[in-house]
C-alpha cells in the first residue's frame, strides 16, 4: 500500500514529472529530425526545441490592447494542467502516491480543462483566426473525448479499475493474452491521440495555412513566454499520449518497486520504446496526406466505433457468462 506521507515517495513523483517535462521537447525534436530525414531535408539539431523555448522566454510579451486577464492567465493554466497530467501518468515507476489520487478519468478531465482555457483564450482577443481555431478545436474535441473515454472504460473493464497504475500492473502481470478489446482500444487510442495532438491527418502544426490550421490558429496571438508555455504544453501533451499508449499496451520493463536496478531497467526500456513510437509517428506522418476538415468527423466516428467495438467485444467474447 502506498504511504501518502512518505517524502521519499513524493520525491519520485517530482523527479518523474521533471523528467517528463525535460523529455517533451526532445521527443518533439526527435520526430521532427526523423521526418526531415524521411523527406530528404536537412534536419535541425535534436536540441532545437529547447533553444526555441529559451529564445521565446527571453523575448518581450506583446499583448493586444483588448486582451483580458484570461488571455494572460490561460498559458499558465494550460501548461499547469499538462504538467499535472504528466505527474499522473507513470513514466518509470508504478504505485506512486499520486496514482491513488488521480485516475484515468481525471486525466481526461485535465486535458478537457486545458482545452477549454485554450479555446477561450483563442476567442479572447477577437481576431477571426482565433475564433475559427477555437470552434474547430471544440468540434474535434467534442468527438474525440467520448472516444477517449470509451477507451478508458474498455481498459478499466478489462482490469476492473480506472487507476492507471493498477491498469498497467494488470497488463504487466498477465501472461501473453490476445485480447480483441485491447487491440481495438489501442487502435482507437492512437486515432484519438493523432486528433488531439493536431498531428498530420487531422492538422499540421508546422504550417500556418489559414484554411487548415486548428491548433496554431488558437495560439496565433501569443508571443514571448506565453507562447513558450503553450508550445511546451503541446509538446507535453504529445509525450503524455505516447507514454500512455506505450505504458498501457506495452508495459514491459516499467519498475514496480523503487530499487536502482528496476529503475535502471525502466529507464533503458523507456529509451528504447519511446523513440520507436516516435519513429512510427514520423513514418506515418510522412506517408499520409492531411485530410479535409470535413472528413475529420468520420475519422473520429470511426475511432469511437472502434473503441465501442472494443468494449462490446469484451462483453461478448471475453467475459464469462
Amino acid at each position, binding site marked *: 500500500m502506498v504511504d501518502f506521507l512518505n517524502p521519499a515517495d513524493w520525491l519520485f513523483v517530482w523527479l518523474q514529472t521533471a523528467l517528463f517535462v525535460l523529455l517533451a521537447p526532445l521527443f518533439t525534436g526527435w520526430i521532427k529530425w526523423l521526418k526531415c530525414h524521411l523527406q530528404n531535408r536537412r534536419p535541425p539539431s535534436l536540441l532545437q526545441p529547447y533553444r526555441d523555448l529559451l529564445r521565446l522566454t527571453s523575448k518581450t510579451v506583446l499583448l493586444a490592447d483588448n486582451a483580458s486577464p484570461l488571455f494572460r492567465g490561460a498559458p499558465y493554466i494550460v501548461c499547469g494542467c499538462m504538467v499535472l497530467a504528466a505527474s499522473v501518468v507513470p513514466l518509470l515507476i508504478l504505485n506512486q502516491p499520486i496514482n491513488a489520487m488521480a485516475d484515468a478519468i481525471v486525466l481526461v478531465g485535465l486535458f478537457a480543462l486545458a482545452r477549454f482555457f485554450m479555446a477561450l483564450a483563442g476567442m479572447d482577443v477577437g481576431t477571426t483566426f482565433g475564433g475559427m481555431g477555437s470552434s474547430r478545436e471544440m468540434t474535434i474535441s467534442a468527438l474525440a473525448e467520448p472516444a477517449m473515454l470509451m477507451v478508458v472504460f474498455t481498459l478499466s473493464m478489462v482490469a476492473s479499475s480506472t487507476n492507471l497504475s493498477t491498469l498497467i500492473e494488470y497488463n504487466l502481470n498477465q501472461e501473453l493474452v490476445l485480447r*480483441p478489446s485491447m487491440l*481495438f482500444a489501442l487502435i482507437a487510442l492512437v486515432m484519438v491521440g493523432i486528433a488531439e495532438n493536431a498531428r498530420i491527418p487531422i492538422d499540421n502544426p508546422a504550417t500556418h495555412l489559414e484554411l487548415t490550421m486548428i491548433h496554431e490558429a488558437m495560439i496565433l496571438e501569443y508571443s514571448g513566454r506565453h507562447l513558450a508555455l503553450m508550445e511546451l504544453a503541446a509538446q507535453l501533451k504529445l509525450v503524455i499520449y505516447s507514454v500512455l499508449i506505450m505504458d498501457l499496451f506495452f508495459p514491459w520493463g516499467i519498475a514496480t518497486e523503487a530499487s536502482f536496478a528496476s529503475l535502471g531497467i525502466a529507464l533503458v526500456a523507456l529509451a528504447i520504446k519511446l523513440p520507436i513510437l516516435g519513429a512510427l509517428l514520423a513514418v506515418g506522418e510522412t506517408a499520409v496526406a492531411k485530410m479535409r476538415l470535413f472528413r475529420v468527423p468520420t475519422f473520429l466516428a470511426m475511432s469511437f466505433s472502434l473503441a465501442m467495438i472494443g468494449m462490446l467485444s469484451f462483453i461478448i*467474447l471475453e467475459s464469462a457468462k
Partner: protein
Amino acid sequence: MNGYLDTYSHLTLTEQSILTLAAMVLVSSFALLAQSRVVATIRLFALQGFLIVVVTTLVALDTHEYHLLYSAAMTLLLKVWFIPWLLTRQARKLGILRDLDSVLHPGVVLIAAGALVIFCYSVALPIQRFAESISRDAIAISLAVVMLAMLMLVTRRKAVTQVVGFMSLENGLFFGALTATQGMPMVVELGVAFDVLIAAVVFGIFFFHIRDSIESLDVDMLNQLTEVDE
C-alpha cells in the same frame, strides 16, 4: 486477480486468436458500412471473406472437425477470389469502379450499427447458453454481421454496393453456422455456395439491365419510374 476475468486468459492461444479474428470480422462489417468508394468496398468484402476463412481453418484445426477445411477452401475460392473479381470486372465495365456511393449520415449509421450490435448480443444470449463449442461466444457477432449487412443494404444507393452488402450478409450466415453448430452439413453448404455463385452472376446481368433502363445504377431512381405512353 478477478475470477470471472480469468476464464479468457486461460484459453489457448488458438482459441484467443479465433475470438480476436471474430471481433475483426465485426470491424470489417463496420468498415464496409463506412466505406464509400466502390472499389474499396469490394476489397473490404474480400478481406472479410479472408478473415472468415482464417477463422474457419483455426476452428477446424482446434476442434478436429476437418470437414470445415472444405468449407474454408470453398469460401476462399468463391468469396475471396471469384466474387470480388467478378464484381470488380463488372464495375470496371460499367465505368463505376472509382465512383463514390456516399453514405448520407456516416456518423448516424455507425451509431445505429453500434446499437444493432448491442441488440444482437442481447438476442444471442439465450442461444449461447446452450451452445457447446469454443466459438459460441461469436454467435452474437455472426448475428451482428448479418444485421450490419442489412443496414448496409438499406443505406446504400448504388446496385453494386448493395450486392456487396448482400454477399456480406451471406458471410454472416456462414459465420453463424460455423460458430453455432460447427458448420452446416456439406450438402447444404454446397447448395448455398452454388446459390451465391449464381446470385453473383445474375446480379451482374441485372446491373446491365438496370443501367440500360434508367441509365444509372442509382437504385433510388427506380422510385421515380412512371409509365410513359410512346
